[in-house]
């Protein structure tokens, strides 16, 4: 059984809500039923077969070909299965997903993995702002799972994050880990201004020395026993984080944000 493949036939001017095309929603549906599903495109609704050529039948592995940055809500609430996006993805990728795998071969938009509960998101390109964050007005961001970004991430990655891992092989923008409640954000590249801004708990694991605000206090250099376990958990990933040369357990620990609860930490490789 080959993957259920949606090949975009043309790029619409309006943004498209792709949330109905998730594995758990398509399970057991006939091809004709899938083709007749209506997607919101701007204010209008359009049939799936008006935008996509459909092939394959495995609803537990969906492939979206020729994808571009206006296809929003891909994999929203996904409970199982795999979605492979060939190209870029729009906003809210993997929003509130509960399990399964989403892979994107190029860049993704804002609010990817927002309020994600579990599963694995693998991004080969760059991620937009508010990766793994809470929706505006909400106070609980990502609650579990792993997000891997092979490129760079935008601003406010992990805003209000509560649990899970965000792994960024490239750089992270300003306010990385802002208002974090818990969880781990690892950044191999540079971080922008105000990393950990107003974080309450949680861990920012950095390969390069950040420009920390005055509300982070230096706790000194330490060898931390949990780091080998954390890096061991990364070994199954197709990532630079999985390489044994990436692992370390000796860090400089900064605690903060002292303007908030102050139980968070920024660990910098030494």
């Amino acid at each position, binding site marked *: 059984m080959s993957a259920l493949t949606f090949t975009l036939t043309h790029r619409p001017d309006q943004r498209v809500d792709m949330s109905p095309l998730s594995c758990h929603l398509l399970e057991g549906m006939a091809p004709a039923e899938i083709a007749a599903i209506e997607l919101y495109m701007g204010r209008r609704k359009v049939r799936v077969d008006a935008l996509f050529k459909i092939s394959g039948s495995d609803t537990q592995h969906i492939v979206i070909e020729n994808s571009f940055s206006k296809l929003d809500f891909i994999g929203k609430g996904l409970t199982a299965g795999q979605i492979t996006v060939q190209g870029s993805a729009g906003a809210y990728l993997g929003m509130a997903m509960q399990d399964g795998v989403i892979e994107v071969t190029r860049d993704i938009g804002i609010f990817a993995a927002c309020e994600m509960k579990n599963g694995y998101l693998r991004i080969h390109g760059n991620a937009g702002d508010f990766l793994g964050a809470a929706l505006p007005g909400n106070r609980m961001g990502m609650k579990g799972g792993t997000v891997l970004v092979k490129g760079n991430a935008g601003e406010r990655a992990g805003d209000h994050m509560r649990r899970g891992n965000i792994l960024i092989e490239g750089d992270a923008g300003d306010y990385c880990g802002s208002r974090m409640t818990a969880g781990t954000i690892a950044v191999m590249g540079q971080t922008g201004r105000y990393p950990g801004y107003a974080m309450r*708990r949680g*861990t920012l694991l950095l390969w390069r020395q950040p420009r920390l605000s005055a509300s982070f206090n230096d706790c000194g250099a330490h*060898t931390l*026993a*949990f780091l*080998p*376990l954390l890096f061991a*958990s990364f070994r199954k990933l197709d990532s630079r984080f999985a390489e044994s040369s990436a692992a370390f357990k000796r860090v400089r620990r900064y605690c903060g944000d002292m303007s908030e609860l102050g*139980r968070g930490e920024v660990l910098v490789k030494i």
Partner: protein
Amino acid sequence: MIINGVSIDATFAEAFPMKATRAIITAQNEKWALISAQAMTGFATSVIACGCEAGIERILDSSETPDGRPGVAVLLFAMGGKSLAKQLETRAGQCVLTSPTAALFAGIEGDKRIPLGKNLRYFGDGFQVAKLIDGKRYWRIPVMDGEFLTEATTGRVEAVGGGNFLVLAESQPQALAACEAAIEAMRRIPNVIMPFPGGVVRSGSKVGSKYAALGASTNDSFCPTLKGMCNTELSMEVESVMEIVIDGLSKEDIDQAMRVGMQAVCDLGAENGIRRISAGNYGGKLGPFHFHLQEIMA
């Protein structure tokens, strides 16, 4: 049945159901992992007065431990789930949390989970940090030597306690030498511990006592100095009896441990003063698991 001049009694050892768990202690080196494990499994010879029975199962190579450091696997057994959890927590808190460089991990899966570091975290006074790694929750508790890392819970499984056999010898040194040989062989068997000092107990007990307050008392039938005073099980040549008690995660584990232990005793044979191997048989009053010596050695 006679093996190498050693008579194997046509009797069975009685054992009873217990609850068990395994924990893994790691440290900077094997020395400190062992120190911590010995402390944690100390005063845990018998549930009669210790609350639990515990022992070191084996030394772990650094490739076998969760954090890649040398470690020790310990097994704890208790009569009930609550008492097991209480003993585990108390011992972890007083003996592993306090032990320099030590970390503590779950060593067994099980549908039932019991707290390992889940409540010890409060020692961190609010500075403790939780980490969920690969679906397992860990606690990082700040302590004066750095951080105490502990997994939150470990598994609890059904187990068997009280497997045993008795070594009857012509002299005390010969009985002890045979038991030492048996323990050395049995320590290579996984999933079992021999909880008494050095794995050997010299004060085997019977069920009941003439004193109402006591549930167990000396096994007079096997006490060599009482041969002329009671309904003895000993011939005049037997001058010393020692017992090896085994707790295991399953009946099969105890079977295997008893087999290698009794074989080691038999290998010394009659020429080293070993006369008989018997077992603590309490007429079915002690427990539902019966280990027939001759069947095990057949």
